[in-house]
């Protein structure tokens, strides 16, 4: 049953050094406030899972939180590279990180299989691609009915998943709306979960088949208004495309990055850590 905690308390309690962590949100609802809190608390040796690392993991990798990254598309959307990710992979700064990469289809299926309690996901995937040559977690099985060769990947079962959503009701039930990505799957697949929300309301006030994550499958709910900025929250505030563009020069330079981190993460507190 979801417990209402401060974000600092939730991160302190459930994100251990060395843990496997998924901060999800497909372009929309990226939990930046939680990522910044992880940086502030100097968590280390994390295995970071995310389909699109985006700026949030660029920042966490640059800040030295990551040991390994599992992902399927690692760019700054519409802008270019994630320079902190590249600096870590290409030049080992601040330290070398291990990467394991998939396609989106495989990652999405692996989250789905994790939510479904299965050890693996089966997909018609990776045909002709070199990715199985560099990722030993991609295997193939034969369909016992048709003989067709199908790809198999292990399901994703993070130690903790963190997502951002529009709102929780007073019981801790959470409404996710708009581009819902793999957030629900990330929460259901994880041992523990933290959901940050824009606001806490009396009633969720949504349709009969809305994407609601019930309180009894969530570990902690933390109020974090603006917690997805510079990403966005459908119905609350738009994406700061400007920040995504501005990030390019900041992230290209180690000193500029460190200065940004000091100003916008270390020298702020949880609730106004959103950077845009």
């Amino acid at each position, binding site marked *: 049953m979801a417990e209402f905690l401060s974000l600092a308390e939730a991160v302190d309690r459930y994100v251990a050094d060395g843990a496997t962590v998924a901060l999800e949100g497909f372009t929309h609802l990226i939990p930046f406030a939680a990522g910044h809190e992880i940086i502030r608390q100097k968590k280390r040796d994390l295995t970071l899972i995310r389909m699109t690392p985006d700026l949030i993991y660029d920042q966490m990798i640059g800040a030295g939180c990551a040991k390994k990254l599992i992902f399927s598309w690692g760019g700054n959307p519409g802008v270019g590279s994630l320079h902190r990710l590249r600096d870590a992979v290409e030049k080992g700064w601040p330290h070398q990180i291990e990467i394991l990469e998939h396609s989106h289809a495989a990652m999405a299926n692996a989250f789905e299989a994790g939510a479904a309690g299965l050890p693996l996901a089966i997909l018609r995937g990776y045909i002709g*691609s070199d990715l199985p040559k560099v990722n030993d977690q991609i295997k193939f099985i034969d369909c016992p009915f048709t003989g067709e060769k199908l790809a198999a990947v292990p399901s994703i079962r993070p130690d903790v998943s963190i997502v951002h959503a529009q709102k929780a009701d007073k019981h801790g039930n959470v409404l996710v709306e708009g581009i*819902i990505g793999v957030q629900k799957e990330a929460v259901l697949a994880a041992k523990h979960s933290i959901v940050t929300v824009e606001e806490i309301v009396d009633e969720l006030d949504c349709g009969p088949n809305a994407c609601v994550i019930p309180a009894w499958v969530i570990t902690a709910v933390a109020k974090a208004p603006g917690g997805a900025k510079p990403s966005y929250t459908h119905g609350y505030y738009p994406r700061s495309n400007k920040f995504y563009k501005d990030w390019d020069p900041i992230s290209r330079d180690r000193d500029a990055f460190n200065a940004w981190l000091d100003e916008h993460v270390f020298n702020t507190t949880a609730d106004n850590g959103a950077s845009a």
Partner: protein
Amino acid sequence: MSERYSASEMMTVTASRALTNGQSCFVGIGLPSEAANLARLTHAPDVVLIYESGTLETKPDVLPLSIGDGELCETALTTVSVPEMFRYWVQGGKIDVGFLGAAQIDKYANLNTTLIGDYTDPKVRLPGGGGAPEMATATGEIFITLKQSKRTFVEAVDFVTTVGFGRDGTARDGVPNIGKGPTRVITDLCVMQPDPTTKELTVTSLHPGVTRADVIEATGWDIAFADDVSETAEPDDQELTVLRELKTRTEKHHAES
């Protein structure tokens, strides 16, 4: 080259014309998104645009910067989860055309968006596969659009992120439940199509004012020309107007927020 339009506009308009009204199209960000939306705003009003963020039948007024801009969801018929997108819509065979870009393409239309150099010690690390690897095999066919240069059009890609026809043109042979793969590549210079037999990319139409020498100069392999190379039709005024307005709206929108 015309004074009336740029090479880049020529490319986008040609790419947009590849789409047929009523087709369902999975849209990659960037040039594919520009071309697909131009098609929707001109000759193909009922083209169904799908972005991997889960937005089905979206009609954005401005081009998205990211694959999951709010605009895509707000103007969509409905938005599904990302697992559903890849399971029911892509793998489920509901998409006629996958419209992709790439960092590097080779003679057999294989795409590399993973890295330049060696995997364990990359010279340049690129973003990775994203939705493309399964798009290339699960959709009916694939259109690819990117600017042409020796750097991007290489004899053999360093890494096959997304299969075209494989290292020797035979990667799709005998594979069950696989789409036709890349049926055309649209650049700022020409249109290429796979040779029906060898699957090697072959120039089938040159944009107005572009010479064979221009294409050869911008290609990293000994590029073949079809027996009957035609001249690509020019953009008409309406297409150019709609495209420019779309880009103006887009730039204004993204500068503001």
